[in-house]
């Protein structure tokens, strides 16, 4: 099998160097499984997909839900009124979702190669992202359970807040640009 390299693999060393202080931790979470799900939220197929995922598809805009643990841990983020992004560990079996949909109307597409996931955590994570993002990222407004598609330093991203920071899902072709931007913006927080 050919060697597989994640889009931000070249930045692992610099991410690690920037994470030495207490303020910030930068890392790439490579090769997560990402599945684009499109289905009518009021259809029975949507309910069956929710059962297969272990959590109902969130219908409230800009929300995300987490369910399961270990190899079955999934995050389901709202992307649109009939569109969701499922983020799961590498090796997640999307056939289960295809089976739940059956031959009904809807689409289940593996988009794992479309985006890579950058993890930005630590006490200054919010300050770092605020340099390039116009959204209010305060945990009172944008805490765990939220999600947003927006631009970070003009690059389109999906932001998913976690207890200690953020998942930043960025297009593979923008990963190097965003990694450079994050490292540059992080300079003032790195000891």
């Amino acid at each position, binding site marked *: 099998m050919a060697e597989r390299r994640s889009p931000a693999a070249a930045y692992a060393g610099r991410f690690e160097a920037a994470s030495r202080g207490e303020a910030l931790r930068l890392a790439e979470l490579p090769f997560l499984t990402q599945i684009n799900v499109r289905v009518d939220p009021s259809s029975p197929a949507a309910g069956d997909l929710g059962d297969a995922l272990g959590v109902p598809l969130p219908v409230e*805009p*800009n929300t995300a839900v987490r369910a399961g643990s270990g190899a079955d841990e999934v995050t389901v983020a709202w*992307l*649109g*009124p009939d*569109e969701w992004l499922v983020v799961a560990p590498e090796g997640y079996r999307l056939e289960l979702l295809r089976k739940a949909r059956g031959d009904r109307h809807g689409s289940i597409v593996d988009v794992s190669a479309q985006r890579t996931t950058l993890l930005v955590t630590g006490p200054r994570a919010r300050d770092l992202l605020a340099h390039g993002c*116009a*959204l209010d990222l305060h945990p009172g407004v944008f805490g765990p359970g939220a999600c*947003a*598609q*927006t*631009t970070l330093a*003009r690059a*389109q991203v999906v932001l998913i807040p976690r207890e200690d920071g953020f998942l930043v899902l960025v297009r593979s072709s923008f990963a190097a640009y965003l990694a450079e931007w994050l490292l540059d913006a992080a300079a003032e927080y790195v000891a």
Partner: protein
Amino acid sequence: MLLIPCPWCGPREEAEFHYGGQAHVAYPEDPAALSDEEWARYLFFRDNPKGVFAERWSHSAGCRRWFNALRDTATNRIHGVYRVGEPRPVAS
């Protein structure tokens, strides 16, 4: 920069959106029956009011949905947004 309230995602920066021109321009029922002038009028002629204008926007960097907005072309104040298929609200 305008702050545009996407009917799905809430208020976002104008840079996240794509402009789609005048709203409620219906496709002709029988395009083949139109004269060249009527077809050109459908294709190219748009209102250009000074005041409230119903126009289409797409939240291209967000939920990627098209919606309609009532924008005052003189003040840039957005009087309301509504989803595709919903009737045009009365401008306040």
